């Protein structure tokens, strides 16, 4: 069995190797014809443009592609083995986002004299992100799923952080953005010289430690009883994996999914011993990125535009994840039943009244009080009441109202998705609905020149619904296993995110405006739109509440709902449809990244809103409150500068989940 199982990976590796040789031959072809191959590699003729271009651009690019691919795949293999999680990788666990965030801060903030510490800084960023993810996920029932979810949350948090920094430093926007999308283009050998020793050191260390890695695969208890120092080993290997990732990202930017897809594919192909897995990962990863980069380069020739390799890799890699999820029974449905605590059933009327009161007080506060850089400024008391201040109030009211409506729409959308999907962690943001909406809107805006906001809203909604249908189609066989939906959603989000990044690098002058919309600013809204969204939200909320009985029954699962006479498939579809419309409407106002759709229903559930109707109302109240606070903070935190509301809400949301995670331990 073990003998035969090596055949598939070997074949795979051989095929990729042949392809890579093909790539090399094609690249070298013009010089091979004249017998100049050796010359162009080592001592290029400085008078021949082709030779210089090849020697200082193509050749280092080839080397970089191989090195980065090999390094990331090895890092992924190591992380997967250490954490015993087939879906772990530098990108999914937030390491990449951590390094990116740290480097962005460093580039923007640190004085030049500290340049020496850049690497240490990046490494620390990656390690802290990974540590946070691990902290959240450790000691949970379904650790595999939690690890990925925690990674997703940390990823979003750090990416929002990076975006805030970028918004305030627009002059660097384009270049940092390109780098963030993973650019392998080279203009010399410096980057290769930078990466080569680091990756070699990292690889050597990880490979040396690979024998004890097999012990780790047996589980902590067994490993320590066999004499391995589990914690030290784990930290060492993770440290080196992060080191490799940080080096690659410093040199070439975010290149996602190689670190996830390559080792996962090799494992499915039959490699189980960690040493074999790693050696194969190095070569397979290198060859894969070499080939992908070659394909990407062919496209670059066409329009003169640059398609970043990292984003393209996500395009190749994420569908692959979906494939893996379908092929492999990665996670047994071990839904640990940890909800035995006898919750008290209490009426939530008091809490609802309190929340409503808070909302009213907060609204008044938000409209009349602001920070003006020196302290609180109360409008209407300090300033004489005149037309001017009336304008200010209506302006504020418009934005506050927009934020609140979005909070409500996302809360309803999230509640519906969580209830119908029977998954307390699903939400429009995580299932890809929001990203699809954003992508549809961006495409319509930049490629096809739609400018009417009403058109955009419809197009966005259509995009969201299509992505939801795709997701449901992908998951139809796994209706009983909610985590498949999440992981497929994650892959979809990654694909859509990659396309968004690619489109954004090409959208030129609109980039800044789109970026701030993506970050969730309410600055561009107008009252008419807000009223439309408010109307849609109200109607759909009423529909959802009217349907609370079947909505409640959906929590019994497909089989039992049908036994009780509910045509669940149609019902689920209809509810998801509602959720997509709501998410699209909200996305148009505050962008795709706000986390309210995840947080509000979750908070409402924790607060004790059990039944569907109450859950809907409770999460609307919470969502509206959160968005109102976020909007006030966004306006006033860095007055006179304006922060995007969506980002602030995302920060609030992720902090909440971090707190929750730490407290539950």
């Amino acid at each position, binding site marked *: 069995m073990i003998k035969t199982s090596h055949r598939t990976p070997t074949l795979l590796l051989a095929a990729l190797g042949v392809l890579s040789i093909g790539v090399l031959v094609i690249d070298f072809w013009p010089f091979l014809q004249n017998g100049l191959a050796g010359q162009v590699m080592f001592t290029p003729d400085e008078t021949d443009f082709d030779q210089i271009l090849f020697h200082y651009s193509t050749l280092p690019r080839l080397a970089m592609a191989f090195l980065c691919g090999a390094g990331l795949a090895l890092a992924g293999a190591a992380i997967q083995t250490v954490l015993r999680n087939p879906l772990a990788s530098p990108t999914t666990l937030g390491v990449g986002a951590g390094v990116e965030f740290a480097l962005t801060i460093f580039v923007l903030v640190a004085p030049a004299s500290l340049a020496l510490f850049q690497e240490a800084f990046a490494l620390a960023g990656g390690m802290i992100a990974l540590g946070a993810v691990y902290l959240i996920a450790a000691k949970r029932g379904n650790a595999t799923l939690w690890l990925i979810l925690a990674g997703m949350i940390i990823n979003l948090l750090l990416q929002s952080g990076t975006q805030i920094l970028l918004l305030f430093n627009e002059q660097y926007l384009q270049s940092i953005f390109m780098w963030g999308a993973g650019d392998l283009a080279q203009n010399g050998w410096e980057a290769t010289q930078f990466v080569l020793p680091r990756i070699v050191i990292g690889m050597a260390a990880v490979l040396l430690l690979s024998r004890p890695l097999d012990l780790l695969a047996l589980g902590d208890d067994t490993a320590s009883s066999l004499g391995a120092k589990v914690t030290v080993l784990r930290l060492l290997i993770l440290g080196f994996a992060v080191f490799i990732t940080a080096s690659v990202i410093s040199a070439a930017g975010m290149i996602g999914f190689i670190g996830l897809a390559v080792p996962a594919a090799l494992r499915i192909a039959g490699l189980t011993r960690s040493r074999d897995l790693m050696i194969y990962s190095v070569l397979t990863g290198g060859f894969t990125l070499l080939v992908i980069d070659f394909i990407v380069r062919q496209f670059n020739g066409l329009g003169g535009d640059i398609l970043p390799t990292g984003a393209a890799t996500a395009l190749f890699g994420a569908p692959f994840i979906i494939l893996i999820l379908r092929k492999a029974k990665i996670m047994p449905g071990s839904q640990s039943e940890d909800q*035995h605590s*006898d919750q008290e059933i209490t009426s939530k009327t008091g809490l609802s009244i309190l929340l409503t009161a808070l909302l009213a007080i907060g609204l008044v506060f938000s409209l009349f009080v602001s920070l003006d850089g020196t302290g609180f400024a109360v409008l209407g008391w300090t300033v004489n009441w005149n037309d001017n201040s009336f304008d200010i109030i209506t302006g504020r009211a418009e934005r506050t109202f927009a934020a609140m409506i979005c909070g409500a729409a996302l809360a309803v959308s999230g509640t519906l998705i969580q209830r119908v999907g029977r998954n307390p962690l699903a939400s429009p943001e995580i299932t890809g609905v929001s990203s699809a909406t954003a992508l549809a809107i961006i495409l319509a805006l930049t490629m096809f020149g739609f400018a009417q906001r009403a058109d955009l809203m419809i197009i966005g909604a259509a995009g969201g619904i299509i992505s939801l249908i795709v997701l449901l189609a992908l998951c139809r066989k796994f209706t009983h296993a909610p985590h498949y939906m999440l992981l497929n959603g994650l892959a979809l989000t990654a694909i859509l995110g990659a396309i968004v990044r690619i489109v954004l690098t090409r959208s030129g002058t609109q980039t800044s405006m789109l970026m701030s919309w993506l970050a969730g600013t309410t600055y561009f809204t107008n009252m008419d739109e807000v009223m439309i969204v408010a109307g849609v939200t109200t109607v759909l909320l009423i529909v959802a509440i009217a349907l609370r*009985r079947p909505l409640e029954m959906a*929590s*019994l699962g497909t089989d*039992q709902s*049908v036994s009780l*006479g509910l*045509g669940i498939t149609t019902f689920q579809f209809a509810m998801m449809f509602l959720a997509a419309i709501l998410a699209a409407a909200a996305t148009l106002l505050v962008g795709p990244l706000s986390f309210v759709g995840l947080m509000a229903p979750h908070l409402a559930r924790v607060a004790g809103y059990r039944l569907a109707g109450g859950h809907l109302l409770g999460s609307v109240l919470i969502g509206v409150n959160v968005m109102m606070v976020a909007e006030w903070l966004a306006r006033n935190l860095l007055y006179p500068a304006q922060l995007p509301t969506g980002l602030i809400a995302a920060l609030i949301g992720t902090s909440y989940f971090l707190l929750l995670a730490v407290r539950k331990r």
Partner: protein
Amino acid sequence: MFDLKNVCFKSDGKNPKTLLDDITVSFPTGSFSAIVGHNGSGKSTLLKLLARKNKAHSGSIELDTQVLSNHGTRDFARKVAYLPQNPVVPPHLSVRELVAFGRYPWRGAFGRYRAEDHAKIDQAMEMTHVTGFSDRLVASLSGGERQRVWLSMLLAQDAPVMLLDEPTSALDVGHQRDILQLVANLKDQINLTVIAVLHDIDMVGRFADHILALRAGRTCWQGAAQDFMHNAVLRDIFQTEINVIAVPESNRFVSYVA
């Protein structure tokens, strides 16, 4: 009530396995039918076919002389109540709220629950002894208590046919008897038809009227209860050395493994 003719069922996938082969049986109305057999013999598969959870099959299944798939979803739910082996336990519902779902087939998404509905719910909870914890969360109950809550929901559903997949697997002996006795009484009082997958041979012998035994997906024996409790029959069904002894001064039998 249920009439099956030459029913076959194959599993999904590239190499479909025949799970049920040429089953022909007629479950009588107003009586307690038990399906028995070794693990993996196809008992639950057969029950799921009756409950329309498994669809693809050859042969014909009729309910009330109508092809099974011709019933609408609501209509079918009013006629047939089904309790799966491992029902999904919603984490947030109280016992009474769960039992109340039994009325859904009759009231739908918008219909108001009337006094008679509430009476039915109360009665169902009374009969299964779950009234005591009607305001506790189902998820906080023990396995046996949950099983009684599910049965209570099925009773509130008020359907003339009840399909039960190992309804007593988590119950203590007293409650096993109570539940089976309850079901047996209902069959007399309201002419309920019960089809249940059961494991305990003695309980089958005690309560069932009609018995269908499966072995490796095929009918291996079917008949009445008094013909069931015999050495030869049981040994043939379970391929194990089982003996049956008569209980003195009653016409009951008890089995034991030799």
